[in-house]
């Protein structure tokens, strides 16, 4: 009792408050644990943060929008400020969206901030996912967190799509019509699912209110839960780091959360917020007043979904449109089913990739040091192939705009995209893999012989040599500290049988590790140095080679 009084006298109000909280909520212990969490410093570790901050902006601006938006499809006659729609018949949802844009103070800014930050949320999450993939951050123990992040990406798309349809304008209505068509394309039960979703025949009078419920309640709640799990796992696993002196799979090198990262991340939030607000204040997004109220008959040219749904739209555009097969009275529209199944398979592959790679390498160790993409050539090549596949589908969503603005034939653009969709990933795979191997060879050369300086020296006996400058330790770490894998050998199991699984694994392992550049070993380095007579530099990491 007496000590408490003393503390408050010494430290003033701040210390008293801290003490009050500590005695009642154990804040001191929590801060001690969390405050000392160490995070490494690298720009690419901030991309997930950008997604998180965009989500915060989404919550703030979204709450503002719910004050004024009315999710009803009852028809009214518009009598608001936008002249070319005065007297037009439209749903209450569309009218209230127009009111938010033109009559609510700050409404336009908030609507645009909500939409721009939605685009940014998914974009930053996607870029973060690519960083995690190409640096191998998904390896043990983070495979489950990869799945959580994957779910967040899907939920981001779901949140975006349900929100996109709320203004009930012509553009979003057309988007819904496409979804309705895809659902109806599902064999046997498509039509039933569609009437269940829309409460009868499309568009009905229910869908906007239903999407609204999903958009403001279920989807954001799920996103919040998954974000909590995602961050909790980051705390448990600790952050990964790039290789460097003193950085191993057993530690993490960086700055503590308190006070460095709290200040840095807090400041970064306001930077992201500022960028989103600056864009929202100066650039129009989704001018719903241009599209007009939803009416099932017209479809405007340039009808596209937001970017993160674009690849699905592109898949529909590229699929052959004349593949309807009729079996036992049911029509199977393969022009719809191929994109539907194809995109699900693609997403499935993205989700399970960490498990596939772990199985192929047979590596059960924990990994906290990230790979440089070149040091995992096949993974990087697979990633490049995936990015190409996605990128072609994505570009295919704008075939019409490409045709108009580059003065090409729409038909030719489509054909070229169809070919690129198949051939592009293969070419990307080969080029990327070869580039990675070449870069690894270059690294090896630099480690063994130092950097070329361009200085030509004539030795006393007349020989000319170029002086090679030995690397410093920091550079050396970056170049030699990576895992080396070798193809697994097919061995019979305890029953003396070679299973199909083993064979498959061996085949995949060969694909991964057949062409490989081994990291420089200490012996090789010593050898090179004695040959060069350059000052001794020791190879930092012991090369543990996996021979399974």
């Amino acid at each position, binding site marked *: 009792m007496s000590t408490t009084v003393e503390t408050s006298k010494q430290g003033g109000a701040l210390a008293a408050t801290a003490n009050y909280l500590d005695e009642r909520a154990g804040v001191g212990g929590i801060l001690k644990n969390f405050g000392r969490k160490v995070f490494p410093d690298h720009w690419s570790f901030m991309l997930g943060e950008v997604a998180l901050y965009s989500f915060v902006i989404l919550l703030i601006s979204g709450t503002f929008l719910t004050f004024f938006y009315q999710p009803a499809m009852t028809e009214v006659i518009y009598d608001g400020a936008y002249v070319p729609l005065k007297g037009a018949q439209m749903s209450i949802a569309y009218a209230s969206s127009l009111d938010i844009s033109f009559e609510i103070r700050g409404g336009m800014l908030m609507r645009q901030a909500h939409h721009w930050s939605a685009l940014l949320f998914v974009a930053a999450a996607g870029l973060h996912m690519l960083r995690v993939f190409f640096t191998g951050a998904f390896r043990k123990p983070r495979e489950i967190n990869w799945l959580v992040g994957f779910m967040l990406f899907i939920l981001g798309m779901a949140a975006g799509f349900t929100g996109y349809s709320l203004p009930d304008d012509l553009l979003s209505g057309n988007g819904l019509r496409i979804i309705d068509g895809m659902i109806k394309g599902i064999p046997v039960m498509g039509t039933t699912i569609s009437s269940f979703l829309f409460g009868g025949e499309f568009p009905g009078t229910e869908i906007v209110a239903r999407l609204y419920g999903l958009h403001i309640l279920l989807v954001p709640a799920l996103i919040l839960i998954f974000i909590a799990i995602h961050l909790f796992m980051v705390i448990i696993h600790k952050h990964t780091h790039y290789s460097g002196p003193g950085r191993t799979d057993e530690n993490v090198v960086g700055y503590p959360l308190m006070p460095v990262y709290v200040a840095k991340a807090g400041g970064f939030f306001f930077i992201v917020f500022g960028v989103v607000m600056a864009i929202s204040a100066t650039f129009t997004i989704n001018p719903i007043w241009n599209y007009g109220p939803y009416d099932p008959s017209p479809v405007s040219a340039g009808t596209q*979904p937001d970017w993160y749904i674009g690849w699905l739209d592109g898949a529909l555009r590229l699929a052959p449109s004349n593949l309807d097969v009729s079996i036992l009275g049911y029509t199977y529209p393969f022009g719809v089913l191929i994109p539907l199944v194809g995109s699900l398979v693609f997403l499935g592959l993205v989700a399970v990739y960490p498990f596939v790679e772990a199985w192929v390498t047979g590596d059960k160790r924990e990994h906290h040091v990230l790979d440089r993409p070149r040091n995992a050539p096949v993974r990087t090549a697979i990633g490049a192939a995936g990015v190409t596949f996605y990128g072609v589908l994505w570009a295919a969503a704008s075939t019409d705009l490409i045709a108009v603005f580059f003065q090409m034939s729409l038909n030719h653009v489509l054909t070229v995209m169809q070919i690129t969709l198949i051939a592009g990933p293969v070419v990307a795979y080969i080029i990327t893999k070869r580039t990675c191997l070449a870069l690894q060879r270059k690294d090896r050369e630099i480690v063994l012989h130092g950097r070329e300086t361009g200085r030509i020296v004539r030795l006393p006996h007349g020989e000319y040599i170029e002086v090679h400058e030995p690397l410093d330790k920091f550079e050396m770490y970056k170049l030699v500290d990576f895992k080396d894998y070798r193809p697994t050998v097919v061995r019979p199991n305890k029953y003396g049988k070679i299973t199909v699984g083993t064979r498959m694994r061996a085949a995949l392992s060969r694909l991964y590790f057949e062409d490989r550049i081994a990291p420089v070993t200490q012996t090789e380095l010593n050898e090179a140095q004695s040959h060069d007579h350059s000052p001794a530099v020791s190879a930092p990491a012991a090369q543990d080679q996996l021979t399974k």
Partner: protein
Amino acid sequence: MKNRFFRSRRKPLAATLVIAAGLLFSGGGYAVATSVVETSATEYTAEQISEGRKLFLANCASCHGLNSEGSAAGPSLIGVGAASVDFQVGTGRMPGQGSGPQLPKKNVQFTDEQISLMGAYIASLAPGPAIPEQKYLEATGDATHGGELFRINCAMCHNAVGAAGALTEGKYAPNLEGSEAKHIYEAMLIGPQNMPVFNDANITPQDKNDIITYLAYLEENPSAGGFELGNLGPVAEGLFLWIFGLGLIVAITVWLGAKSN
């Protein structure tokens, strides 16, 4: 009497009569509906027509034929009316330069006076759509109705606000920004190049005026939300976000992650 009447319905001649009546009715109705092609509202003098013919022979006849009867290089102009000449030459599409899926808009090659003379000559060959009356071009109509008509009839090719759209095989619906009211009206009337005809029975002159009013409103009132990114919709928005939005933020992360010297 009654029986005879019913029996007579089954005679072959009756069927022929019914078909003839039906054809007369529907065909006649169609003829009435489509004959709303205006004959020249203004009478041209013989001097204007002969001046126009001289211009035609010097600039157009090599493709359209000496008597505008058409050739392999260009269609017949008999009956296309002064509106066609005014649109095609007045927007610079004619005289065409080079072949392609579609003749693009370019700098106008003739003076208004010369265009009107050529129009007089073409109009003298056969009745055809005339240059629209000024009262329909003042953008004084109902913008709401015009907007609705635009979305139903025009937006599927020209985009919701006329920012251009693709057609098949390299053809396209051009951007409407900066188009003169007269040319918008004439385009609907004559259906140039790949555009369908929206005649006066389909879209009345007043409706055309409403559409012109809507487009004029869009041109005079830029987006309340800020820069429009070409009004191209989500593709332009997505590109902007990835390149400038995320690009800027990534540049900032690099700056924040950079080690101080």
